[in-house]
């Protein structure tokens, strides 16, 4: 594959990833406000969060200041994101492979970040010797990330096949997703083992992408790894693997969103706007006629 073809392919797939990723995130973020659906424990609750308590435990809670703790919330999030605490507590059999799987991906993201930083420093004219820990950090992250990811993805794949309880509920797409991640990580391991200077090769590719230099070269297994990784990235925003983004919303905007309604607040304005929408539910008792909105229909009984 020529350098220019490789470059165009990289740009195309990375652009697809970036655009689709942003669109997906914006779509979720712009969904309308929903009714309160919080679920204990809400860790931002200072002191009460430990046992799942909320401000509603307080006598005349509306007269008291809310006591929230960002540290408690961040601690909870840290344990969940890094150590997959919920899985450890509720499905340990899956944790043993899910943890290396996710940790491998985290390390690869960190490694990719360092590669980009390395490329930017190179563009800025910083000599390789002046790029600090990057030289040692990137290969370590790449090796550890790919090995852990391979173990995790393979283990999860095997578990889903062997465990009848999981197999019956596992779709073809779920297997495909795992295979794809396995492909990324396993080809990474093979590339590290077969390409003499894996880190240098990857740094060269990233540098070429940053400078649009068509002389980019990806020898043998490195090219395979690069292609599989790019396909994975382009596919990611369309897959259930976007749950790492969804998780932010399910936790922060649903489970932990216990903001009470306050007069004159944006929440109240949003709510009033949403209540003004026309309802078209078809059951007789709803009374929708294609014109009446939520307020009309809900207050018909009130006005009686």
């Amino acid at each position, binding site marked *: 594959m020529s350098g220019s073809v490789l470059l165009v392919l990289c740009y195309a797939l990375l652009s697809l990833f970036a655009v689709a990723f942003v669109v997906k995130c914006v779509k*979720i973020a712009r*969904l309308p406000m*929903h*009714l*309160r*659906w*919080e*679920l*204990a424990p809400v860790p931002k609750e200072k002191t009460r969060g430990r*046992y*799942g*308590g*909320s*401000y*509603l*435990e307080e*006598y*005349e*809670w*509306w007269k008291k200041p809310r006591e929230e703790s960002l540290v408690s919330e961040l601690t909870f999030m840290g344990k969940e994101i890094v150590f*997959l605490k*919920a*899985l450890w507590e*509720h*499905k340990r059999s*899956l944790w043993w492979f899910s943890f290396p799987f996710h940790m491998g991906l985290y390390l690869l993201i960190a490694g990719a970040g360092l590669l980009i930083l390395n490329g930017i420093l190179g563009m800025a004219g910083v000599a390789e010797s002046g790029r600090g820990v990057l030289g040692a950090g990137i290969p370590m992250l790449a090796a550890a990330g790919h090995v852990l990811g391979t173990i995790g993805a393979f283990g999860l794949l095997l578990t889903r096949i062997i465990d*009848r309880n*999981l197999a*019956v*509920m596992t*779709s*073809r*797409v779920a297997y495909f997703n795992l295979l794809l991640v396995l492909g990324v990580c396993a080809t990474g391991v093979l590339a590290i083992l077969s390409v003499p200077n894996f880190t240098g090769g990857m740094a060269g590719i990233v540098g070429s992408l940053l400078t649009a230099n068509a002389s980019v070269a990806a020898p043998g297994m490195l090219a395979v790894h690069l292609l599989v990784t790019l396909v994975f990235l382009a596919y990611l925003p369309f897959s*259930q693997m976007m*749950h790492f983004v*969804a*998780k932010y*919303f*399910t936790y922060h905007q*649903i*489970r932990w969103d*216990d903001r009470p*309604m306050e*007069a004159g607040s944006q929440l*109240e304005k949003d*709510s*009033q706007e*949403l*209540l003004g*929408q026309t309802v*078209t*539910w*078809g*059951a*007789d*008792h709803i009374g929708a006629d294609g014109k009446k909105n*939520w307020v009309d229909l*809900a*207050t018909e*009984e009130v006005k009686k």
Partner: protein
Amino acid sequence: MSTRLQIQDIAKNEDEVLSPVQIDELVPLPPPYDKLEEQPGWKEIKPEIKEQIVCNLDGVVGLSLPQPESEAEKQEYVDKFESGLKKLFTKENNWAFLQPLLLTIDNCVSCQTCNDACPTYTSSGKNDVYRPTYRSEVLRRLVRKYVKPGGKLAAKIKGEDIELNWATITRLYELAYRCTMCRRCAQTCPIGVDNALVTHELRKLFSMELGWAPKELHEKGTVLQLEVGSSTGMNPVVVKDNMEFIDEDMTEETGVEVKSPFDKEGADLLLIHNAGEVLAWPENPGAFAIILNAAGISWTLSSDEIGYDGVNYGLFYDDMQLARIALRHAQTAKKLKVNKIVMGECGHQHKAFMTISDRILTGEMSMSRESCMPLLEEIVFSGKIEFDPSKNDFPVTLHDPCNIVRNLGIVEPQRRILRYLCPQFREMTPHGVDNYCCGGGSGFAIMSPNNFADWRVSVGGRMKFKQILDAFDDQPGPEVKKYLCAPCSNCKGQIRDIFDYYGALDKSGVIYGGLVELIVNAMVDVKEPFIKWEEDY
């Protein structure tokens, strides 16, 4: 289970039972409830009844859906379901839950972590159809196929093809009433997917588009409440009369003058009970009156239609009915010019009125609302009432109503009261926000058609019953009288049925009741025991 149920099986063989409950596979209970042959059997559904109603899920019939008269009628409902499915994903019709629903539909990775958290799935001996993920995965595949662009082709390619037919919609309908929406599953999900929400949304689709809902929740529930004032059928005159009787009884029994004020304009608080208490557990509203009067609280009840019944079954199945009732509750409080509304011992009332309705009570409908738990805690520890905890010196454990504890995070006030007033208080395992549902949640406690009550107590409530027995395993026999504190009307209804079914009073000496009864029982001014062990619970 010997054979594994596939997702697509739900659409096949519409007249056959998909995954029958196996009574001999249910989780064992401790002695003396461990012998299957000594347990009451299940009510048999007669063949002639089966011909008239749909019975194709698990051999249990909770909804009594009539068999259609023709294939055209079946198709009409299937079409309506598809139309409703699309409406579930529109901002206009479902802004109230669109974001949580979409996130749940799009992001489950089928790890099955939630399965073991579900009391129904666990107690059933892990019947596949009761997995929290089963109904969700069916809905997910239907959404992908019938709502998303290009879904039909994608479903074939992905191997996720599922037919939307009479079998699918009728089984989904019944299956939507095998989950109490306790949200224990949602708590364990690493991603934040909420399978209980799927239950809620399915019920909503059936009610708001097809007009299908259990008559106990709809005709005899929200519709009756909106027409008469209460799902119990009590009109304002009857409820005032009943409260007068309760006041007289309580005065006689306790020696303390009991008076429940009605319609006192400008009172500090409006107390709204679940009206079922007035009929089934009159000692509960009576105890509230004794406590509030003794503490010198300015309070009132309302005789406004709906204002005397905190029930809002709309929470369980229909957003419009929910909104209609919540607005009527708010209107009552405005009329009386009270400072706040206090929820009685009713879990779903707490959730419906304190949080779920919060964002529809805008403008002048907005007002302060609180649970009775912190109010009672404030009173008990205020020093205004003298207590003698030795009057409550018997084993007591606490049931945590899901809607008060897991969903609202009101965990400790009731415990601080019990730890103070009940020397032998002990916790269940697990408890607090990790509790098990009583099995009567989401409206089940008032649903008993066909063999549904048998299922409700022996499958739905099994884990709870086991927990209760385990909490008293140091004194299991009937010679030691024990008290289960269940501060929620629906939970009490379910626990009453469980205890009756198993004969728990005779075999284990355990009775149930609310929190206020224990508080009054410990009051020094109340000379006679308020809790009556000999009564038929």
